[in-house]
């Protein structure tokens, strides 16, 4: 006689697909940091910041623009500038194929989107990086769009802002990507000579050549909370010094403490802070 006092009466999963109590995709969001769940709408309405732990989910230009530009009204600039695989770079995959894949999955042309609009009625040009496009890497298109954004700001006497979110230079463009650091810094000197404000917002992550050029050159450098910001990546540093890195290393608070940020701003408060700062600059 069997000792089990319960027994599966029928084999297999019997609930039909129609009866399943499963939420459709995209209604719920689980915070990668604290695992708390919220509805996608709640998250959206809170600027994609976790309502429980204040974790700032990574978002791209389209979300930042909606958050910042009045009534989500803006004009996207220089969308006709597209990347090209001039070197025919081939690693495990041809660069050309990487570009096409990234363009297909993101619907973007490259890792930088430039928009002009108003923040609480104050005109501004914002260049915002898209981390979902090859890690937000900085190639020729990123540099050129910044350069043209600066020309546009100078021509129309508008403040300029860059929202950085990038792993650094795009290796598949080799020295051309390196020279974008020189190019964007050179263009920023022209903006400075025109006495127009430049606000640099660093978000998670901002590393490598982006940090070592335009991200650190703002009239004010600001950052979202707990963003990873640094020149060398933490893995490289760890391998070099062969020691564990201190807690909070290269996070926003660390940079603020060491004097490289003017302030840290919650994304939910970003628009308000920016309009305050812009008013101070242009008045």
């Amino acid at each position: 006689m069997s000792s089990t006092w319960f027994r599966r009466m029928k084999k297999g999963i019997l609930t039909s697909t129609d009866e399943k109590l499963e939420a459709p995709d995209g209604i719920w969001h689980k915070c990668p940091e604290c695992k708390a769940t919220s509805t996608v709408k709640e998250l959206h309405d809170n600027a994609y910041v976790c309502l429980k732990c204040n974790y700032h989910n990574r978002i791209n230009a389209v979300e930042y623009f909606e958050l910042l530009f009045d009534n989500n009204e803006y004009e996207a600039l220089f969308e006709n500038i597209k990347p090209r695989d001039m070197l025919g770079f081939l690693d495990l995959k041809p660069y050309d194929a990487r570009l096409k894949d990234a363009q297909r999955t993101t619907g973007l042309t490259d890792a930088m989107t430039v928009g002009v609009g108003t923040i609480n009625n104050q005109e501004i040009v914002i260049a915002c990086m898209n981390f979902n496009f090859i890690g937000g890497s900085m190639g020729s298109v990123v540099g050129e769009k910044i350069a043209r954004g600066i020309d546009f700001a100078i021509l129309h006497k508008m403040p300029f802002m860059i929202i950085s979110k990038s792993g650094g230079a795009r290796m598949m463009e080799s020295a051309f990507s390196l020279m974008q650091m020189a190019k964007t810094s050179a263009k920023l000197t022209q903006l400075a000579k025109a006495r127009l404000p430049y606000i640099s917002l660093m978000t998670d992550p901002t590393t490598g050549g982006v940090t070592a050029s335009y991200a650190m050159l703002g009239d004010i450098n600001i950052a979202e909370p707990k963003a990873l910001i640094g020149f060398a990546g933490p893995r490289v540093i760890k391998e070099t010094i062969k020691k564990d890195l201190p807690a909070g290393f290269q996070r926003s608070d660390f940079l603020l403490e060491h004097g490289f940020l003017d302030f840290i701003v919650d994304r939910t408060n970003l628009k308000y802070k920016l309009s305050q700062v812009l008013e101070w600059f242009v008045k």
Partner: protein
Amino acid sequence: MQFLDFEKPLEDLYAQINKLKDMSSKNQVDVSNSIRELESAIETTRTNIYSNLTPWQKVQLSRHPERPYTLYYIEKMFTGFNELYGDRQVKDDKAMIGGMAMLNGMPVMIIGQQKGINTKMRQMRNFGMANPEGYRKALRLMKIAEKFNHPIITLIDTPGAYPGIEAEERGQGEAIARNLFEMVNLRVPVICVVIGEGASGGALGIGIGDRVCMLENTWYTVISPESCSSILWRSWSFKEKAAEQLKLTSENMSSFGLVDEVIPEPVGGAHSNPEGMATTLKAFLIKTIGELNKIDPDTRIEQRIEKFSKMGFYEEAE
């Protein structure tokens, strides 16, 4: 003499010569004819090897342990060198050196990364990897040169800016960014020469000039072939392939218009005839400063901005 792996045929020929010499001194035989033949074979072999170097072999050459470093060029090209130390904030960075010097009787500021010539010195120089203090010292010196209207020469030779905890605490990114921004608008002529390794932001941090040049057997790009291999191929063993794909040689860089000029090296590389290399470089610097001095500062700055602003490739749809 130290030989790189691809110089093996040369090493063999030199070994044969030595053997012959030994033999002749022991047996009193005249081997001068054979030696002469071998020497001419060495010249032919050297020329053959050096006219067909792969990108990776050029990377190896740029790191040759006998290759002349910044201080060697300073000693050979200038008189009255006075090294200037410190960034006035934190410390003196031994990986970045600089000072006042006379080039053919003309005052210049010379700045460059410095690698060590033996194990102890290599550590002291941190393998030519500067910390933020190094970049800030460099900028301080450039500002002095600007104030007193003297040209600036930078010699680039670095495997990269140092990736360390203190470097991040003191703002490695900010230090390099600041140099790029400030160098763009220096009112005096600026000449930058890659004399060895030109790795990424660490090189660019002293690399914004009216003329940016490379010695023939150097490399300059966004990342070292080894790191590129480890990131894109997820393995350290594709460094040759990475070097090829990165198109990092002086020839490539000049054809892209990313550097202004390539300065030829003696056959066998700068280390085979360091004095000859220094003489060539010195003549180049004198000539180039002469040219740049004829341009007024505002135009020079405009041209500098224009040059860097043009760098990049993209498509522009209608």
